């Protein structure tokens, strides 16, 4: 193994980029551990509380890119109260104090502040890339710091964050000499945008590949921007209010025709139905289309656009497309790999919407499909069994039937057999979300067949602790398990405490676990942080000794960690 000098081994390691593989390499021997340590460029931390910045820096002194994730997934649906945690500030401060030459920071579900962004922008001379996904706590002032101070910035990618828009001049903070922009995504900003500054920035960014605008960028500005950036690959349209046949529209059409590199289209945050036709000329090259925010576009217009998109690999759409529309997708988009269908009616009982027929059509027509997120009002076992037969290659399968506990609408049976068929056929399934009426049986199937499953989301499902036990015992590769409103209790929680060391985290809310059970778990497993998010403001009850049979009406979130209890938890989070 050590016939080669370290530099040669390091050079070989350079070709190994996946985190899992690099983790494996570091376990081979001490020498490899050391070489790998010093040469690791990209560090991924799936739970910011599993480790501290200091330990990170001790282990990897030379990294350039850091990915951090904070809040649990269910925070996306408002199940985690404000102030829970996930603060990036200590990380930025620690990194700033050290000598690490940070170039890229990718954060997901974390709390970021303007002060933190300012510190970030001043501390790392070669900082190139900032990607914030589902973060909050900062404003456009923080963006102004990044724009002003990061001379070598390439990417500023803001995805679905909650940003306080001070309607300031952050875009004009990019110096006139700054020309290295490659990615600019500010679609989630709600306020006005300085169009002049934006146009000047785009005009002096010859390397710009990805531009995603917010709703304050109107049609005529879009036309001018596209004329300045015909090399664009990925475009997010802001606002496209109908001005059919107007001068702006004609200019836009001319500009679009020149964008021969355009492969990805998204946005249409404010859009009139007819606007899509302007993009028909570029459809034949599109590989990615995200119209999931275009609530005002009728299904018929969506279909007309999609008919031209023969090379589409990724499609995110609203269910207004209907089953008919999905049939068009199935017959047109033979290269489709990922499909997400979002609901337009959150409360059920809608008449449009897609059904099991749409899902079956897609599975029959798109042989390369491997990821799906499908919101619908109804499903049948027969449909799921057909889907499983048509598409044994699913890696991610997420089905959300809007009404909890809804059975097969034809047979009134639970959907155990349908999901069972999915897990049995899809041997590479890594992520699964189940819904509808489900008994313990479906979990028996999951435990038996879903051997590669890493993430499972359960809501309103199961009958007894056995359900959860089937999963914990069977799914050896489980990393993230999130459960809500299901009758799993202490027996399941405590059956195999060591299992949680092999997982990143477990979330259980509105289940049957009790405070006493959680405390027992915390005692048995000191290497876990067992947190109760208590929203009832009843701290007194715990002190008065009420325990044992009390249900944890609130939320249990536990995760493995090497640094013990976190110190930044708010009062409503009890760490047991």
């Amino acid at each position, binding site marked *: 193994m050590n016939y080669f000098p370290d530099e040669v081994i390091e050079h070989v390691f350079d070709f190994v980029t996946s985190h899992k593989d690099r983790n494996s390499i570091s376990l081979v021997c001490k020498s490899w551990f050391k070489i790998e340590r010093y040469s690791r460029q990209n560090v991924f931390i799936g739970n910011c509380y599993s480790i501290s910045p200091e330990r990170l820096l001790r282990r990897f002194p030379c990294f350039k890119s850091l990915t951090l994730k904070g809040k649990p997934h*269910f925070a*996306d*649906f*408002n*199940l985690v109260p404000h102030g829970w945690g996930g603060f990036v500030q200590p990380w930025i401060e620690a990194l700033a104090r050290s000598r690490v030459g940070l170039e890229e920071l990718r954060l997901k579900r974390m709390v970021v502040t303007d002060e933190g962004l300012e510190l970030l922008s001043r501390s790392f001379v070669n900082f190139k890339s900032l990607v914030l996904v589902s973060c909050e706590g900062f404003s456009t002032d923080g963006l102004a710091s990044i724009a002003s101070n990061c001379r070598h910035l390439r990417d500023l990618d803001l995805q*679905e964050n909650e940003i306080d828009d001070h309607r300031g001049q952050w875009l004009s903070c990019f110096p006139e000499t700054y020309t290295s922009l490659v990615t600019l995504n500010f679609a*989630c900003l709600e306020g006005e945008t300085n169009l002049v500054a934006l146009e000047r920035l785009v005009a002096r960014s010859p390397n710009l590949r990805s531009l995603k605008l917010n709703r304050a960028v109107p049609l005529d500005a879009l036309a001018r921007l596209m004329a300045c950036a015909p090399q664009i690959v990925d475009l997010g349209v802001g606002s496209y*209010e*109908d*001005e*059919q*046949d*107007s001068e702006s529209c004609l200019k836009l059409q001319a500009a679009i025709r020149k964008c021969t590199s355009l492969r990805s289209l998204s946005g249409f*945050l404010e859009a*009139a139905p*007819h606007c899509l036709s302007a993009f028909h000329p570029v459809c034949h090259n599109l590989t990615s289309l995200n119209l*999931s*925010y275009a*609530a*005002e576009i009728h299904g*018929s*217009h969506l279909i007309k656009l999609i008919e031209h998109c023969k090379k589409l690999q990724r499609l995110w759409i609203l269910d207004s497309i209907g089953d008919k529309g999905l049939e068009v997708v199935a017959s047109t988009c033979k290269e489709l790999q990922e499909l997400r269908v*979002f*609901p*337009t*009616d*959150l*409360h059920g009982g809608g008449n449009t919407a897609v059904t099991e027929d749409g899902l079956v059509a897609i599975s029959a027509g798109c042989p390369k499909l491997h990821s799906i997120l499908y*919101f619908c009002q109804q499903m049948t076992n027969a449909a799921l069994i057909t889907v499983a037969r048509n598409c044994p290659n699913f890696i991610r399968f997420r089905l*959300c039937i*809007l*009404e*909890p*506990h809804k*059975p097969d609408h034809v047979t*009134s*049976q639970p959907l155990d057999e349908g999901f069972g068929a999915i897990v049995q056929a899809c041997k590479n399934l890594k992520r699964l*979300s189940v819904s509808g*009426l489900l008994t*313990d049986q479906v979990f028996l199937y999951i435990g038996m067949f879903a051997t590669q499953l890493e993430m499972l*989301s359960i*809501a*309103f499902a199961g*009958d*007894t602790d056995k359900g959860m036990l089937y999963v914990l015992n069977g799914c050896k590769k489980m990393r993230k398990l999130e459960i*809500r*409103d299901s*009758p799993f209790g202490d027996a399941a929680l405590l059956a195999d405490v060591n299992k949680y060391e092999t997982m990143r985290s477990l979330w259980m809310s*509105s289940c049957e676990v009790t*405070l006493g059970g959680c405390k027992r778990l915390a005692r048995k497993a000191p290497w876990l942080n067992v947190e109760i998010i*208590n929203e*009832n403001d*009843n701290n007194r*009850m715990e002190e008065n000794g*009420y325990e044992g049979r*009390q*249900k*944890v*009406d*609130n939320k249990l979130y536990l995760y493995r960690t090497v640094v013990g209890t976190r110190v930044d938890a708010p009062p409503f989070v009890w760490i047991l």
Partner: protein
Amino acid sequence: MDEFVNLKETELRLGLPGTDNVSEEIERVSCNKRALQGDTENETESSMMKTETCPPRKAQIVGWPPVRSSRKNIIQTKKNESDSEGGRGVYVKVSMDGAPYLRKIDLSCYKGYKELLKALEIMFNFSVGEYFEREGYKGSDFVPTYEDKDGDWMLIGDVPWEMFVCTCKRLRIMKGSEAKGLGCGV
């Protein structure tokens, strides 16, 4: 069924008594303890029972369906716009060719076309000319149009007012050359 309700009453809970949590729990217990009612033969029966006893509280379940707030907001806007066709405040966008930004007006505030057009003339500072059934609007470069439910652009004034309010999705004051196609007299 009643026995489950009583069991719930005696349990110590973290929630305050008399809060919504209690009634939520009753419903949830009925749903989750379904299996205790019997074996598989009774499953259909108990599912049906469950549906009777647990009417889906669609609007009230926190964090369900699992859709981000940003997505919920766009759906809500769309719903509000279509809900308002009932007459509770029929807000529609108004654009005018050449104007830097759009306006919104409440159609239910006007009793008829005359009032509406007058209001638009004041808002955008223009004149709309005179309406003729055959030729449309004569005497002005501006033509008032609206987009109907089918996505088509129609001349304002052709259909009865009530029908217009119900089918109108947005307004556009067309100007100049585009307006000619709609029968603007030359």
